[in-house]
């Protein structure tokens, strides 16, 4: 009995010690003032030095937390019990959150750095007039491929995926909008199509792709491509950038018929306690120098026009990640098609997956 009590006491003492160290660390990493904002962001999606810089410049302490999916993030904000002042949802999630009244409108007067954002990325259908959100990073959907594993194939157009020589080589993302959208694009239709005939045609075309499909998976594709276990993948530009970072042989291309343009956006959730601090943070992140440093760190494309001047021209001149005006014209942002239409997309995608051998 004695040794159990002794063990318990030891654990309590150790915990108390750790708590003490922890609070010391917490104090030294931030300021003692009451001014605090809580940022809820994707993992590895900000340069941590910038958080420190923000704290030094404004005296506002940043509490930083991360999430790994839009849905999980919204679930927590919707349920309450938290006090996030800033979050970074993708474009379709901005629309859903706005519909559910989970966002606070932005005050433009507190955001003078707004002028640096490329107007091309503003006033888009998912958030008309940018009432609730501002773009944080953006990218495209395209084809990542490893030329060393292929016999000189290029992917100028989506139809190149159907090439019989790619038997069992292509990896698709396990997501209805992306895959069906690719089918629609390859036929020259809009990827927001709600025309059932077009959707049927796209699905039938996808079914003809199935001999070439090696797998339909999620984020695991990065590792497969990096290790050279897969040659071709339909993927997002950000993920392609990750692949290229680890394996220089990989290349990325957005076919010319058009593709999807996606955004992650800064918003202020309904749960915010420090709305003024949140605006200060957004304005800070829109500062060209800051945005440039952040884009360097994260590796995604920044919508900040002025920031491009601060960045390595080799990066900003890379048309794979900063496509020219002409390519951009062919890009489409996902529209919210409503639950019913989304159901149709999911059903067709399921049908395609089931018929795969």
């Amino acid at each position, binding site marked *: 009995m004695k040794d*159990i009590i002794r063990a318990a006491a030891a654990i309590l003492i150790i915990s108390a010690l750790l708590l003490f160290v*922890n609070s010391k660390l917490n104090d030294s990493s931030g300021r003692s003032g009451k001014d605090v904002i809580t940022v809820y962001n994707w993992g590895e999606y900000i340069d941590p030095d910038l958080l420190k810089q923000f704290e030094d410049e404004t005296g506002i302490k940043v*509490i930083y937390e991360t999430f790994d999916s839009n849905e999980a993030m919204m679930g927590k904000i919707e349920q309450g019990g938290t006090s996030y002042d800033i979050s970074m949802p993708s474009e379709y999630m901005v629309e859903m959150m706005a519909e559910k009244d989970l966002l606070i409108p932005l005050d433009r007067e507190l955001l003078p750095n707004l002028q640096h954002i490329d107007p091309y990325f503003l006033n888009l259908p998912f958030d008309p007039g940018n009432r609730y959100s501002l773009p944080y990073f953006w990218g495209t959907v395209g084809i990542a491929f490893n030329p060393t594993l292929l016999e000189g194939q290029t992917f100028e157009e989506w139809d190149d995926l159907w090439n019989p020589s790619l038997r069992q080589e292509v990896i698709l993302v396990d997501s209805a909008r992306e895959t069906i959208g690719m089918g629609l694009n390859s036929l020259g239709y809009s990827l927001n199509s709600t025309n059932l005939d077009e959707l049927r045609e796209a699905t039938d075309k996808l079914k003809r792709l199935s001999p070439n499909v090696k797998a339909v998976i999620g984020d695991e594709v990065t590792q497969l491509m990096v290790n050279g276990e897969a040659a071709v993948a339909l993927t997002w530009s950000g993920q392609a950038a990750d692949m290229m*970072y680890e394996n220089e042989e990989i290349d990325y291309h957005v076919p010319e018929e058009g593709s999807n343009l996606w955004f992650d956006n800064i918003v202020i959730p309904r749960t915010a306690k420090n709305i003024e601090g949140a605006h200060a943070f957004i304005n800070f992140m829109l500062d060209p120098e800051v945005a440039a440093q952040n884009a360097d760190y994260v590796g995604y494309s920044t919508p900040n026009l002025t920031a491009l001047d601060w960045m390595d021209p080799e990066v900003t001149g890379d048309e794979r990640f900063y496509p020219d005006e002409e390519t951009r014209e062919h890009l489409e942002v996902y529209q919210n098609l409503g639950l019913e239409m989304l159901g149709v997309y999911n059903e067709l995608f399921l049908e395609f997956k089931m018929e795969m051998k």
Partner: protein
Amino acid sequence: MGKLSSLPKLYLTAVFIILYAPIFYLIFYSFNSGGGMSNFESFTWEHYSAVFEDTRLIVILLNTVIVALLSALVSTAIGVLGALAIAFLRNQAMRNAVLSLNNILIVSPDVIIGASFLILFTIVGVKLGFASVLISHIAFSIPIVVIMVLPKLQEMSTSLIDAARDLGASRRDILMRVIIPYIKPGIFAGFFLALTYSLDDFAVTFFVTGNGFSTLSVEIYSMARAGITLTINALSGLIFLITVALVLGYYALGKKAKTDLTGVRK
């Protein structure tokens, strides 16, 4: 211990290699000066120093350990009492019912437990953070402790208690000097199992973290989205080392407990 013939030995070795290879692979690359896990360039400590420079990561690591220690401690205390109550319930049907309720909690999916806790906490008005994580970890660890302690209680012969009573021991003496020393290995096993459960739980913890309080599993999960960085490798290596140390400590304790049982009472 009997001698194993060569075939089972070979099989056992293969199993252990498969189990440990990924961990050693991960630790091996934590010393890689190159950026990724594809080719080893040269030896470096930089990822380890990156772990120690990142105060946020250290704070999260300490959070994780504190929650694990405290939740394991409290859940062991409650779990042992629970096991005692179940073991000494007179009514057979009642005992089975309580035991089943306990087991249901063990098999029910973490996601559901986590979501229910989130809903409960927001209804009651508990702010998400340290308290909510600690409470939920205690809650899901209790059934595990019960399951670890109960067999020890059941294998204990009732004649031990009868003998103690015949010799004039009070109820308190029976509990403190007979039962608890007897089930001590179970208590320690329950404690360490609760500790590891708390350390690696993601699903429940994800729902109840908030307001700047986070644990390693939640943090690593969202970090891994952008590909595993070698900092995670280094951190995992450190945790692996700590775990090995803990297990060795557990064995040292277990050995001591054994000699205690056979030796004279303390």
